């Protein structure tokens, strides 16, 4: 008898990855529907457990966290869960989790004011990067070439509205060799790794980077799996960078894995959507 759990893919936007995931569930014969979190609401004392398990693919960080928190309160297992989304969706919390697990990252600091960030930049040295605490795809990352530029950029930061905007995430600039590495981890297992190739400081596929297969070394496997564990993610895209000495450093851990570039490079070596669907169905049998 086949097990048909009532699973949900939670996503306000169905892009290629979500379409592949929904098709993968269908091909495995699993009962799976798509739910749009823009239409979700819940009474605080509601105890109706509507779904058996949820794959959280919500693109908005705030909605993703609150949807997960709400569903988890109803006893619905959510992958990735709210706690891990909160860690991965905040670069500083990610850095603290990685360092706490003894994992290598570029020298990184958080200035609690733009003024403090200037001191942190002086300590880290120039060039350096300023990154927003939240967001992806390399948006709003600024390469700070010297102190004069730091003063100018931080003056703009100081003028931004809201206290969150005044927290400044500062990171050592690593002169990467025109590429970084994306490794996908599922349930503590490495699915594979690819190079993301692009000129400039951003190597995001969403910004046009190309991908090529990357031989999964023992070091990549160890770091990627440990990074997923440190951030509490069941499904994670771990981005690594090679420094001038060839040492691997972890840049970030993504909870809502975008895998079209990865899949293109890997070809038929692994079917990411099918593996995720199989993982969720397997987990649902135990929930």
């Amino acid at each position, binding site marked *: 008898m086949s097990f048909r759990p009532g699973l949900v893919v939670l*996503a306000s*936007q169905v892009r290629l990855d979500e379409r592949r995931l*929904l098709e993968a569930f269908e091909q495995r014969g699993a009962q799976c529907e*798509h739910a749009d979190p823009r239409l979700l609401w819940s009474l605080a004392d509601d105890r109706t457990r509507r779904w058996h398990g949820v794959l959280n693919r919500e693109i*908005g960080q705030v909605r993703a966290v609150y949807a997960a928190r709400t569903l988890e309160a109803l006893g619905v297992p959510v992958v990735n869960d709210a706690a891990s989304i909160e860690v991965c969706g905040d670069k500083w919390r990610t850095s603290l989790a990685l360092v706490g697990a003894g994992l290598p990252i570029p020298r990184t600091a958080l200035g609690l004011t733009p003024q403090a960030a200037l001191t942190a930049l002086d300590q880290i040295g120039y060039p350096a990067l300023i990154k927003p605490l*939240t*967001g992806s795809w390399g948006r709003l990352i600024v390469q700070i070439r010297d102190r004069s530029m730091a003063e100018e950029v931080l003056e703009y930061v100081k003028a931004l509205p809201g206290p969150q905007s005044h927290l400044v995430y500062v990171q050592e600039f690593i002169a990467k060799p025109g590429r970084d590495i994306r490794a996908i981890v599922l349930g503590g297992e490495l699915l594979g790794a690819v190079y993301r190739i692009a000129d400039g400081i951003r190597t995001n596929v969403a910004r046009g980077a190309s991908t090529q297969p990357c031989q999964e070394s023992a070091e990549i496997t160890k770091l990627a799996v440990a990074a997923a564990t440190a951030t509490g993610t069941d499904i994670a*895209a771990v981005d690594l960078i090679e420094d001038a000495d060839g040492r691997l450093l972890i840049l970030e851990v993504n909870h*809502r894995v*975008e895998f079209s570039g990865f899949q293109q490079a890997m070809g038929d070596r692994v079917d990411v959507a099918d593996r995720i669907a199989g993982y969720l169905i397997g987990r649902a049998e135990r929930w």
Partner: protein
Amino acid sequence: MITCPVCEIAVEIPAPSRLGEVLECTDCRSELEIVALDPVMLAMAPEVEEDWGE
């Protein structure tokens, strides 16, 4: 025939289509969202928000 709400050129709708599915107009490159299925209706997809990401 379903047309792009921006440039009014015909847009090919994938089958099966799903609510919330995001398409790109092959002519004007606008991102479009399927907002109704029966009949299919398209609208401009939402702009990227500050907290969007992976």
